[in-house]
């Protein structure tokens, strides 16, 4: 059935508005990253940079100030206000990557194991433990901020990757266990039953037969855990002290509330920081959307 021209025009007009709303802010921050502060402060703003430059990227990546950033007292608006926060973007990215990747790997293993048992096995305490895991997710993070700090301090884990990884596991597992349980529920048990008749143990059936089949669900789980760990802020602020463990949100939030920040450098740091999650989401797009459809659809 062909669409009427009027409807087509309307749909495209709405699409353009929606596209601007969705990616306009991103395009602007990218735009800003190719300008220096003196240009950013022009009124009205330059939608297309008049003097596009890679200096911000060079500065953040090499940490050697390019000539434009050389100290010049006459040029107050110039980028010499090199904020340390923005310059810490690369080490912070490294920390974020390590924490998020390890969280993702551990989350996938732990949640697949647990979800498989919840989905396939009848055992005493099954409903209670499942409800308990789900209910734990309802506790607001801020409500356990003080005890978390105390626990991490008692374990002598302040300012370490492990502290963040443990906390992020506790906060991501309820969702991923629920999600994987639902995912396993959709899978008919025939294949693994056949494998067990052929002499596989339950664990072997899971790793050799089931895991390859539910790989898309596992990818969605992993993506969810990674993105969550990468984004988390409250505990990252609370439990990190130095660049030994500070993650990207901590470093960038410090830049954001610093009124003396170089906007150009900080915008560049934001661009670098949002590339990994966007790439991640786009690469895993099919798994994420089909996984979500499965969990929320019929």
């Amino acid at each position, binding site marked *: 059935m062909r669409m009427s021209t009027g409807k087509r025009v309307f749909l495209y007009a709405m699409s353009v508005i929606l596209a601007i709303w969705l990616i306009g802010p991103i395009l602007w921050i990218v735009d800003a990253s190719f300008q220096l502060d003196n240009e950013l402060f022009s009124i*009205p703003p330059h939608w297309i940079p008049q003097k596009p430059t890679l200096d911000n990227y060079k500065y953040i990546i090499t940490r050697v100030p390019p000539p434009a950033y050389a100290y010049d007292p006459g040029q107050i608006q110039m980028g010499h206000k090199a904020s340390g926060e923005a310059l810490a973007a690369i080490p912070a990215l490294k920390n974020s990557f390590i924490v998020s990747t390890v969280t993702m790997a551990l989350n996938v293993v*732990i949640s697949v194991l647990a979800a498989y048992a919840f989905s396939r096995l009848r055992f005493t305490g099954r409903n209670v433990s499942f409800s308990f895991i789900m209910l734990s997710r309802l506790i*607001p993070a801020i409500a356990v901020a*003080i005890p978390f700090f105390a626990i991490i301090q008692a374990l002598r884990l302040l300012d370490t990757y492990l502290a963040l990884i443990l906390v992020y596991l506790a906060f991501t597992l309820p969702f991923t266990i629920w999600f994987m349980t639902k995912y396993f529920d959709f899978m008919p048990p025939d294949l693994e039953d056949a494998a067990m008749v052929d002499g596989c143990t339950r664990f072997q059936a899971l790793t050799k037969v089931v895991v390859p089949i539910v790989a898309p669900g596992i990818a969605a789980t992993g993506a969810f855990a990674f993105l969550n760990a990468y984004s988390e802020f409250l505990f990252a602020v609370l439990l990190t002290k130095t660049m030994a463990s500070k993650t990207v949100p901590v470093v960038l939030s410090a830049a954001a509330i610093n009124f003396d920040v170089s906007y150009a450098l900080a915008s560049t740091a*934001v661009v670098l920081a949002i590339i990994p999650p966007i790439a991640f989401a786009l690469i895993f797009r099919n798994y994420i959307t089909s996984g979500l459809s499965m969990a929320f659809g019929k």
Partner: protein
Amino acid sequence: MAGGAARRRHIYAYLSILPAIVIIVLFTVYPILYNVDLALHKNVLTAPGSHPFTGLKNFADVLKNPGLVRSFRTTAEFTAVIVVGNVILGILIALLLNEKFFGARVLQVLILIPWAIPVVMAGIIWRWMFAGNIGVINGFLYSLGLIDKYYSFFGNPATAKLTLIVARLWKDVPLTAILLLATLQVIPHELYDAAKIDGGGAWAAFRYVTFPFLKPTLTVLLILETLTGFVTFDLVFVMTGGGPADATTLLAWYTYTEIFTHLNLGRGAALAFIIALLTLVMAMFYFWALRSEELY
């Protein structure tokens, strides 16, 4: 032997869920007990070493503070606006994305971008978009001749609230739309044909076919977004700092500042306990409402 098989099944099941349970107990049950203990004693960081039992005094102190009521009201307002905005925009966008045309396929990719961006970074980007010095929103309004000098969005309580709402919706509506779209796609086409034969227009089709299908997903989204409203912390941190005055002091931010500016852990724990209780009651209410719904 049936008994042996059942025992093996139990052992396997317990071993499987053990790691998850251990981590969650360590980071939820224990913290709550710890919080209760803190809240029942005097515990001020400026006076270490002196922790007499004070009963419910911390709770009374917290509840007496008019700041709590104000921040609760601010949070309720904020939450109401984002829940309603999220549902309306989510449905409209999902309907647009469900149309069969090239634009929908492009948008289905673009819509993942705000969803993937960490809240802190979304907040920073919107903070700078609304800024009074480099803000492009000001620049845009100025170029159009709508304002003759840059406006300070963060200096006025109403517009400061607006900035938070805009950032929150930008970040949250995509997931709502994706989930609603997934639900839309399973609606059998015959139902629309039937609605057409019955002589209903587009609205009738939406009201009697589309909406009933969306309802269970909408209920889940309602819960998620309400909880989001009550725990929004990062956006306040990077965008408004709770101001001007306490116009954007949401509960999570209020709790954070109470703990870390007054360094009174006892009171902070009492406040945390009250907030956890509040969230739990709200969630229970939703589950109860959800249960009385007829789920398909």
